[in-house]
């Protein structure tokens, strides 16, 4: 933490923030609301160390676990830590990738993310087993359960655990700044935290599929306007 919150950003930091916001917009298609807090907390050099390292971690996790799986592991790492913004944003990213690649809608809807945000750890494992009971989600379930188990003190064992442990320690670092947005979030308002967010056509197809799924589950849903 670089300095007192009561001190505003310096001129050089404000200039750097504009550059950072522009880079975010080009990379993700939107400006995450946490950039200013990250610059305030870490300073400009600290911000670039933080964002560069996080980018390398995300690539390493995607190479090691798979693109969608890595996003879901990151999402649950962020959610466990209490950052709803990271949780919802990366779970959305994993969902979007699976929808693009396999045409599936995972059970990890906005309502479920909200529910898991409130679920005590001792009940979370059982709930996740219910939600991800289909065989196609077996690997995702195994990875996500390890997020909770490693956090509860289990010893890492095996290659997957090394990647999950990396996600956990990296998101300890990330959520230090994102928590300012992550405490009072509603999942539906958080965009997928991936460059895939720029693919608006995909996001619209995904949103339409989720809406159709909700109507199918509860036919009265479509009447609400």
């Amino acid at each position, binding site marked *: *933490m670089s300095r*007192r*919150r009561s001190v505003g950003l310096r001129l050089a930091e404000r200039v750097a923030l504009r550059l950072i916001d522009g880079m975010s917009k080009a990379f993700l298609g939107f400006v995450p609301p946490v950039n200013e807090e990250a610059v305030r*907390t870490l300073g400009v050099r600290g911000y670039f*160390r*933080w964002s560069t*390292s996080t980018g*390398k*971690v995300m690539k*390493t996790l995607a*190479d*090691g676990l798979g693109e969608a799986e890595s996003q879901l592991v990151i999402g649950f790492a962020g*959610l*466990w*830590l*209490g*950052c*709803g913004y990271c*949780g919802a944003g990366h779970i959305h990213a994993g969902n979007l990738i699976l929808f693009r690649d396999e045409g599936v809608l995972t059970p990890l809807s906005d309502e479920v993310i909200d529910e*898991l*945000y*409130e*679920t*005590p*750890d*001792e009940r979370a494992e059982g709930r996740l087993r219910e939600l991800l009971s289909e065989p196609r989600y077996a690997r995702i379930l195994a990875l996500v359960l390890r997020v909770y188990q490693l*956090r*509860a*003190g289990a010893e890492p064992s095996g290659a997957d655990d*090394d*990647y999950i*442990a*990396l996600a956990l*320690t*990296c998101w*300890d*670092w990330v*959520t*230090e*700044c994102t*928590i*300012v947005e*992550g*405490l009072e979030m509603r999942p539906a308002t958080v965009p997928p935290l991936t460059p895939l967010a720029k693919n608006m056509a995909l996001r619209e197809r995904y949103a339409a599929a989720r809406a159709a799924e909700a109507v199918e589950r509860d036919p009265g849903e479509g009447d609400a306007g």
Partner: protein
Amino acid sequence: MSAPPYTLTRQVDPPPVIRLELMRPLSEAETAALADALEAEVAAAPTTVLVELNALPRYDRRLRQTLLALQRRITAHGGRAVYVADRPRLRGLALWVVHMAEDSQAKIVGNVAAATEWLRISDHRVAAAEEGTLSALGRLTKRRGGGS
């Protein structure tokens, strides 16, 4: 008569800590009483405070601000705090509190065993996360035979 909103006890068994357990959001008078009671505990010498949030069914803005004020007192007196919360929203609350209080030594964990373990070590939360990330990333990159 409603149940007390918190308990504040001194644990003498090692590691010595002040344990604050919150059971529900506090009224203005209860907030003031807790602030005074905690001040009396932490003002004399740097003290470790273990804050248990598990019993809280919910929290409101006042409780958020109360926790922030308490954390600032602990920090100002050179003490350190560890928060125990068994669900994400409460861990988020604790992380928000220690972030806004700019206390890089405070920690958030999921259970009392992890809190007790953490109390045995000296840890700078943000620096430890950065160092842990870079060293784990280095190990995995090396194992995969990667360069940069």
